[in-house]
């Protein structure tokens, strides 16, 4: 069976690509520190020697629209084009192209459906920055085949938070039951407190540093119970109107496992939002755990 080589949870910040590649007067003052932190974070995936990446993110009204809105969708295609005109326009993101791991997509769909998750699927999916940002930060070569999984964190009504945790747990089990000798990294991106298109956007910090502090602690400690106890679909409006992206962090806590402390934790307090990076090395990868300790 396949091995889960790493579980990685991260914020996805579409400004990273431009900040990290800009030079001279265009280079923002925080770019060097950001690049340094991303480089260290990238090493946690490199060290895992993954063959395949399962990438959990959320379409930002690109291919998926309100006339046909799945809650959870698995890409099942041999290839994926990536990034959209409005992401090139606003963030300067490059067009990208990935190979798909279609047999793993098929396994996740078949066994996921049989496990009680009514997963939607797509045979032609152009993916967006929720998936390409972690590829840019963690695997800029973009040379590993992927399975993209989209969650709805964007268009209410949403599933309850516990459902994201359950799906994360299921994705972990589905990867572990994939009849393959490959090493799979499960990577998911979301947000801490975030405001988009509201009065608290683009402030000097994220809109709710206290929420961010608690959220980082929950994730780092694998404290699913506490997160589920304090977070609801209603409460997530309060730290910032786009904070439902935290549900993808909760999904990744499910994938990492209850009570599992992250082997690598880092944060970066930026304008607009706090960046946060977490890596777990499961399945007794003790050597990797030791090397990956933050």
């Amino acid at each position, binding site marked *: 069976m396949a091995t889960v080589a790493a579980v990685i949870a991260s914020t996805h910040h579409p400004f990273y690509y431009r900040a990290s590649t800009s030079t001279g007067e265009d280079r*923002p003052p925080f770019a060097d520190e950001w690049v340094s932190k991303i480089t260290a974070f990238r090493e946690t995936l490199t060290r895992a020697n993954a063959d395949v990446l399962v990438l959990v993110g959320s379409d*930002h*009204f690109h291919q998926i*629209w*309100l*006339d046909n809105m799945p809650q959870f969708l698995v890409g099942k295609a041999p290839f994926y084009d990536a990034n*959209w*005109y*409005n992401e090139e*326009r*606003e963030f300067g993101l490059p067009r990208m192209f990935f190979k798909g791991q279609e047999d793993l997509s098929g396994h996740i769909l078949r066994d996921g459906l049989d496990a009680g998750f009514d997963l939607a699927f797509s045979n032609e999916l152009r993916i967006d920055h929720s998936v390409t940002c972690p590829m840019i930060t963690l695997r800029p070569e973009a040379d590993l085949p992927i399975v993209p999984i989209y969650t709805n964190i*964007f*268009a*209410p*009504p949403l599933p309850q938070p516990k459902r994201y945790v359950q799906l994360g747990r299921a994705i972990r089990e589905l990867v572990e039951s994939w009849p393959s000798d490959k090493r799979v990294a499960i990577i998911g991106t979301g947000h801490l407190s975030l405001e*988009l*298109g*509201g*009065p*608290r*956007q*683009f*402030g000097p910090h994220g809109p709710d540093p206290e929420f961010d502090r608690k959220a980082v602690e929950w994730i780092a400690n694998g404290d699913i119970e506490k997160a589920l106890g304090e977070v609801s679909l209603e409460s997530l*409006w*309060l730290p910032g*109107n*786009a904070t439902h992206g935290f549900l993808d962090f909760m999904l990744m806590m499910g994938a990492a496992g209850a009570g599992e402390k992250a082997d690598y934790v880092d944060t970066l307090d930026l304008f607009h939002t706090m960046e946060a990076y977490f890596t777990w090395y499961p399945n007794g990868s003790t050597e990797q755990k030791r090397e990956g300790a933050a």
Partner: protein
Amino acid sequence: MSKYLLDKFLYTIDRDPDLVERYRSQPRETVQWWEAERANAILNVHGGECSTWLKFDEAERDALATHDYPRLFELGAHPFLTLTLFIAMFERDYPEPLGFQLEYARRLSHLSMPYPDIST
């Protein structure tokens, strides 16, 4: 009132570079044209099988026609869609980085939680 149709307008304009420019320079004409020609088009469905019932109410039509993004927020348009399209149209008019985004926040500063419902 149709939050869905407001969102559909923002979404379909935002993904078309020509329509972004047209909406920037001729907002009222673009809204009129779009409501007449595009509001009932089901995406990915050919024109013979369009919807028949979608239209703006006066407040929505006027908010779009006047680029009134604080009003769109109050009407429950999806903030991500509004922000993305309005950055595309107006960021270029501000010399400082994030100048438009901060002006946008300032113009919404009278709002407090809970924000208007964006459910469609």
